[in-house]
């Protein structure tokens, strides 16, 4: 038995939670939300155990390192981050909408990680460049940021959907203003985390490559993402923009996130070759 076994249960738990959240939208039952949150908590607990289990297991293999070092591990941690961000913010923003987005996205990512033939789930030893104290703080801040942006992306899409179908204030899904507010809150938290991710990355690059910034594609794309969300926050805070324009910037921002995460590695080439 290894961590991938836990991951398969977690995948199922998130799928069930997403389903119960969806049903609770239709029937408007509070206890269903509670049930969905319960399933999600169970999933997150097991997910955390799976991460710890893999961490311990890597030490047993004599190549001990945090499970944050290859594509598979990044996917598992990305989905963990999504659910973690949801659990941290559910008190503030209500559980239903961020809950369904977080569990559904997590389910998709985990299913891809487990089922796709492209993702090697073996624990691999660390190459010299990754043997750094910055690994943990850099990866955690970056993926927590990605998770916030992913939820904001979800609420932006739903916002556009509501506006387009003229159902801004109907009961199904939160009203458009709430979606707009969640988008903004998620992006402001994500922006701070992304800044932290870029700073820890710069500190690491300074140790590993002798410079804190070198316009490597990964660095440049993280800056592009940062600039887009920076524009979003300025438009919102200083200009009071709301609505469709903001949703579009949020969606473009998330496309930049995806490109920073995957596109840079699979389409471009650079120093940051390990995701």
């Amino acid at each position, binding site marked *: 038995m290894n961590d991938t076994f836990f991951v398969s249960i977690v995948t199922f738990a998130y799928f069930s939670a997403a389903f119960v959240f969806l049903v609770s939208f239709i029937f408007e039952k509070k206890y269903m939300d509670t049930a969905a949150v319960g399933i999600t908590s169970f999933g997150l607990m097991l997910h955390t155990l799976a991460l710890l289990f893999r961490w311990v297991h890597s030490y047993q293999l004599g190549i001990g390192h945090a499970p944050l070092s290859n594509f598979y591990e990044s996917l598992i941690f990305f989905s963990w981050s999504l659910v973690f961000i949801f659990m941290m913010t559910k008190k503030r923003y209500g559980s239903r909408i961020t809950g369904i987005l977080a569990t559904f996205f997590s389910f998709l990512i985990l299913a891809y990680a487990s089922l796709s033939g492209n993702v090697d789930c073996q624990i691999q030893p660390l190459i*010299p460049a990754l043997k750094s104290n910055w690994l943990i703080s850099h990866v955690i801040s970056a993926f927590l940021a990605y998770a916030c942006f992913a939820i904001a992306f979800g609420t932006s899409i739903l916002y556009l959907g509501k506006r387009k179908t003229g159902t801004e204030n109907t009961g199904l899904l939160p009203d458009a203003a709430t979606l707009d507010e969640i988008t903004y809150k998620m992006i402001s938290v994500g922006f*701070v985390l992304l800044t932290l991710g870029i700073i820890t990355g710069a500190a690491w690059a300074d140790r590993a490559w*002798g410079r804190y910034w070198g316009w490597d594609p990964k660095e440049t794309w993280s800056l592009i993402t940062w600039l887009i969300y920076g524009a979003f926050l300025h438009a919102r805070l200083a200009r009071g923009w709301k609505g469709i324009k903001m949703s579009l910037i949020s969606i473009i921002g998330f496309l930049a996130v995806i490109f920073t995460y995957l596109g840079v590695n699979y389409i471009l080439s650079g120093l940051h070759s390990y995701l």
Partner: protein
Amino acid sequence: MQTKLYRLFSSVKVAIFLFLALAATSIFGTLVPQGLPLERYDKLFSPSVFAILEFFNIFDMYHSWWFVLLLVLVSINILACTLRQIPRIVKLTFQGKKGIDDSVFTSSQIRKTWHTQEDLPGLMKRTQVLLKSLAGNYVEVKNNDTSYFFAEKGRYSRLGMVFVHISILFILGGGVIGTIWGFSGQMNVVEGTMSDTVLLYGGTGTEKLGFDVRCDDFTVDFYETGMPKDYRTDVTILEGGEKVISGAIRVNHPLIYKGLKLCQATYGIAGIDNFRIVVQNNRSGKKTMLTLGLMEKVTIPESQASFAVAKFMNDRGGKGPAVLGVLLETGKAHDIFWIGKNNQEQRGDITFALHDFDKKYYTGLQVSKDPGITLVWTGFLLILAGFILSLFFSHMRVWIKIATVPGGYELSLAATVNKNKKVFKEKLEGLIGKFQQGGTA
């Protein structure tokens, strides 16, 4: 004119435009590889595309005049915006606890007025407790029959945004200093030799370090899977021929000396040395080991012949390393033949076999000097401090007025907060509800 220009530069619209312009243009540099020699681009693109890209300096776009101009405009914009905002923020932050005027009770975001017949001392006491629980302190002003209370918390959180914006100027400033007064390049040092010269990146010349870097040893370790595990250079720094320090440079563990950072960047094989050739005299059966360098002639024992290695191949025809041996015997023509690592070659009475050889590595060290880095780190810390201040703290102000009215007292409450208004409003309404029922916080 001056004010118009100032308004333009301190406008948030311009800021948003510049952000998006930087983001959009930055993409080019990630699609076109940066900083290669021009001939390489010539092969990559058709002549017309090449001409356009070259015109816009896309081959080194992050240092091009127009990209630097964008960065300068961003800096001016941040500076102008901050200068425009600072007076207001400073006023809000440091305005002291001035006398309370009645206007807050009609203009604040949160307002509430109610009547009570409770006795005054109890009411005052409970007001004080309420404000203490909200803000930790309060000011009380008495004006005829009316008592005013004022409490506030988190004034300094307003400085968070100022910190964040100034930090960007620090970081950009540090970048400029590093570009002007710093350098970055590579030095390749063969094991056992030393060097004091760095080849600057971008082919812009060399830089003398003022001290020598000697490579004592270079080692590369691999995992069983063949993945690299560790690259390590043992170096000694010498000044005027005198040893100063010794240390190891590994990936993620640079050596810092006199403000210069030496990082492990690459390595390679500088040459092969100390070939060990086993020579067997087939008549006597005696084996001898010859140790020789490239093109070094040695006499083969018990014979008139001598031998030299003329050439080395790392992999000859898929059969592994081999040396090209030259056998010289007086009165005979040179005999030239390959000796593989895994087989023997017989020439007359003598059998040759390549036993082993030493690889001589060179280490590629990246050497960089960046006098702007302190400013950059300061900027990084400042931006985080700014975010923490503005994310986790908010500026809250509460005013309470107790006025004597016929048949009791009139209480007015006003409050403002600069963030999370909804949450604060709900919390305050709960507290007021309790207060009206005679409880405290």
